[in-house]
């Protein structure tokens, strides 16, 4: 599956890059969009090859990142529009999806998207039970029961007067 960059027709001047996800699918991205990722930019500066394989980003996530990059590379859009795009971009997304996104932005070093996603995740984590957080992040609790009790005691104030949610 090769998707063309929908935001503008390919011209000789606007070079494009093919990015392949770990699933093997390839995405055609304009170079101006690709260089918003610091990692991709570095690779493009080093190599003449126009095919970049990302071994740890899947189709779905990569598609989202590319949509983001393309939007932000579009000089025709105002900052306000881009800002509302960002809001739209993260709203309603599953926590799991956000995790893959933030990982991908870290890999690709798309700083601004990373911040946006991290903010969204932080907002979701508000008022959540520790158990919820452990489950969603798949964290092994490495505290001993005594140590955890102690930490909870030290931070008892953090639990007072709060309605915590488990979903």
């Amino acid at each position, binding site marked *: 599956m090769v998707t063309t960059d929908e935001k503008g027709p390919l011209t000789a001047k606007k070079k494009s890059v093919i990015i392949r996800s*770990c699933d093997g699918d390839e995405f055609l991205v304009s170079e101006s969009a690709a*260089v918003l990722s*610091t*990692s991709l*930019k*570095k*690779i493009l500066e*080093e190599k003449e*090859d126009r*095919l*970049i*394989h*990302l*071994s*740890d*980003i899947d189709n779905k*996530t990569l598609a989202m990142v590319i949509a983001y990059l393309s939007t*932000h590379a579009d000089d025709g859009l105002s*900052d306000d529009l*881009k*800002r509302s795009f*960002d809001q739209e971009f993260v709203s309603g997304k599953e926590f799991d999806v956000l*995790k*893959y996104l*933030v*990982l991908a932005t*870290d*890999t690709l*070093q798309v*700083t*601004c*998207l*990373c*911040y*946006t996603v*991290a*903010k969204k*995740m*932080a*907002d979701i*984590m*508000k008022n959540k039970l*520790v158990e919820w*957080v*452990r489950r969603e992040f*798949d*964290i*092994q*609790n*490495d*505290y001993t029961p005594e*140590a955890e009790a*102690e*930490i909870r005691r*030290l*931070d008892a*104030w*953090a*639990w007072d007067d*709060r309605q915590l949610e488990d979903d």
Partner: protein
Amino acid sequence: MFLPNPKDSSLFLPHGSSHVDVYFMPRKRSRISAPFVVSGEPKQQPSIEVLPDECLFEVFRRLPGGQERSACASVSKRWLMLLSSIRRDEICNSKIVQSVEPEIQSNPQKANDFSETKQKCEFDDSNGIKSEDEEFQETDAQGCLSRCLEGKNATDVRLAAIAVGTASRGGLGKLSIRGSNSTRGLTNLGLKAVSRGCPDLQVLSLWNLSSIGDEGLCEIASGCHLLQKIDLCHCPGITDEGLIAIAKNCPNLMSVTVESCSNIGNESLQALGRNCPNLKYITVKNCPLVSDQGIASLFSSAGHILTNAKLQALNISDVSLAVIGHYGSALTDLTLIGLENVNERGFWVMGKGQGLQKLRSLSITACKGVSDLGIEAVGKGCPDLKMIALRKCLLVSDRGLVSFAKAAESLESLQLEECHRITQYGIFGILANCCKKLKALALANCLGIQDLDFGGLPLTSLCLSLRSLTIRNCPGFGDAGLGLLGRLCPKLTQVDLSGLQGITDAGVLPLVQCSEAGLVKVNLSECVNLTDNVVTAIAKLHGETLEFLNLDGCKYVTDVSLMAIARNCTVITELDVSRCGITDSGIAALAAAEQISLQILSLGGCFLVSDESLPFLVVLGKNLVGLNIQHCRGISFATVDLLLDQLWRCDILS
């Protein structure tokens, strides 16, 4: 920071056909150096087991408040340590854009591209900036919290939890750590968490921590610039490097204590003197690396600001005292203890230096070099000296002391302890000669004192300023000397003669009778030869002023004394008649005296007091806050139980 070496071929592994480059994700610098497992190997099939620290870090920075951060700290140790590594200013998004990618900025060729990237990103941060403002309102930290970790509680995890937890609740202002957990001991990592999370820290006290080194202290220096007081005791891992970092980065530093730190030396003191414009208090004790060089450079730089200095058990010589005497123009309190290598010349030159114009209090203990010549020079050189204490100064004799007292015109308090060359000539010499201002004289354990008969020595001038007289455990002091003291010092209000076994009624009575001002506190404990006559005289003559009377061990004191007290004393609040010969009828007399409201009564070891005293003790107990009936063999357990029951407000020793 990113892509440490882009040319490193290991980052680009061939995959499939040769023309395809596979980009493997290089990991950013780990935010923490703890031995936590960070997901390392990239996987063909992506599955998120654990988000890398960098991602979590970005999320944590954006948590809405301190509550959320504390809650997240409970998730796992790794999260706690990661949370504790977030500096407060890193919660601020706008600053991070610049600090995250300094490498790119430093590369001029790419700088333009980067700024473009940054420009495009700017609006993304607007949300973040807004939340940051809210965050700062919430964390209006002033460093009002105080925490102390002791022994097994002193672990990195706990310290990190404190750092995270206190950050948004006023901020940690004072941290004390006493020893460390033996298995999971405190390390530099814990201090690092403090440096990140507690920028308001003002007081840091580290005792008995062998696992803490310069790295930890340097972290504190880099994160806690508001530090005012640091106290290091038995921290062998800390060297000059750590303390110098503190000196250079904490301009508010006011008080430094270094005790038994075997690797801290002269360079630290030099750095403190040169870099700390507010250094007022310095204590250096038992640090073998500290020598004259350190003390000299400290005082030559900071002598005009240091007000309090305590030097104990150091390998310093006359040179140090000379420098202090010359440069210590701001010193008000100086304590010198156990300076073995300081000789007579050192003290002499300290006084001659004319620098100690503001010195008010001088305490010298166990310095064998201090002599008559030296002490006289100090008296002349310190015109403002109000208090001097000499302990274990074996060379100081009457002559030096009297010369000193003549010179030190402001002297208000003189304490002599274990100065065995002092005799009564010295004592009376001081009282007669000096000191229109001397208010307190204290002698303790001066074994050289013998009672001298001055006969009908004419008293040319009385010592009208003396209010407080203490002569403890000077076995040679006797009735003759005491009688003369009484005549010489009629304004006494506080008298402590405890342990003077040689004195009798004949000595104490004149003192009691001569006192014009009215005695307020009298301690005659262990003056075993005193009888009811003295106590009766005290009660009759000073009953209106006497508040405190201790007769512990005066075995000849009986009910007669208690009856005199009951009859005459109106304001007495504390009475100790332990091991006296009193009986139930004495207690009854006390209880019957309605004007008396004793707060503390000691009857310890009064064998003759029996269960019969119960009703009287109950009456007295209405006002008592403390009652001692230990070793009263005549009082049964049942009576004690009844007392405990009825006098529940009173603290009863039984």
